[in-house]
């Protein structure tokens, strides 16, 4: 009991907020009851003002549906960090190094060329290969895209 009148129930406040009818008893009560006024403001925010601004137009629905990825598309993984890219390159480099060293021991190429071949192989892994995470190429593109937006 506040302001000489009973606090309206949530149902009554919903009805009051939705009907927009004058209800002097509720109005009078709200002027003197901060708790009910706070409750009403929550209800009004949740329910909207009934102006139709929350309706989604058919044009907007078409736009949303047209922009959807294909049905088989799951959520895209987030962009890979530079550290992961570095690890991919490192892994590629080591693989290239061991392969080149193995080939070098057979064909007697110099250590400089072995290192060069390993570095090139690492770079190719980052750019085109599945790499350590299996999504290095999209990640590389993601990084490039992020860079261009900044």
């Amino acid at each position, binding site marked *: 009991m506040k302001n000489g009148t009973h606090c309206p*129930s*949530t*149902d009554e406040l*919903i009805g009051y907020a939705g009907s927009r009818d004058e209800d002097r008893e509720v109005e009078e009560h709200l002027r003197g009851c901060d*708790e009910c006024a*706070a*409750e009403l*403001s*929550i*209800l009004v*925010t*949740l*329910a*909207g003002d009934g*102006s139709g*601004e*929350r*309706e*989604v137009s058919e044009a*907007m*629905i*078409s*736009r*949303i*549906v047209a*922009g*959807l*990825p*294909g*049905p*088989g*598309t*799951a*959520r*895209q993984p987030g962009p890979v960090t530079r550290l992961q890219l570095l690890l991919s390159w490192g892994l590629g480099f080591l693989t290239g190094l061991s392969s080149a060293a193995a080939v070098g021991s057979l064909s007697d190429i110099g250590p400089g060329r072995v290192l060069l071949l390993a570095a090139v192989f690492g770079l190719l892994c980052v750019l085109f290969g599945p790499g350590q995470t299996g999504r290095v190429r999209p990640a590389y593109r993601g990084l490039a895209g992020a860079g261009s937006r900044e």
Partner: protein
Amino acid sequence: MIDTRRLRDGDPEYFATLIREHGRVVKAVCLSFAESQDDVDDLLQEVWTLIYQKRRTHRGEGSFAAWAHRVAKRHCIDVYRKRTSERSGLEWFVRNGGATDIHGKDPTPGEEMDRREAERTIWEALDALPEKQREAIVLRLIEGRSPAQVSHQMKIDKVSVRSNISRGIKRMRSIIG
């Protein structure tokens, strides 16, 4: 009731139906976080695309609307935090030419900012409610369904619908302070 199979299959026609039925919930959240009408449209597109991508994570047990609300709120808060960390509120208003008029009113920049902040607090409080209370509030108040429809969808009687809403609103009030 949600056709879980069609949702999981990613049927675009069915997805359009879902947007028609539950679009109000998502748009209500987007309106509170958007900076302009164009921004509302962009947020709507982003949120619905996110919902589509996450569709397989909806278990089909709770209400789709309550789940969609949660996805929308989280995405909008992420976007909002990113923006506010990039610039101050004052810069935001200068950049937007003072008060934006997406709600059809003409408040001062300060009033508009306060109102939006209050709305965001309410959306966050809603998200903090227990599932049943949140679901009842989303269906009854935001989607505007009748108590009978909410009762049918939630598989509880009308008295429970009313008490869930009432307890939820009171709890939100205490969360907001």
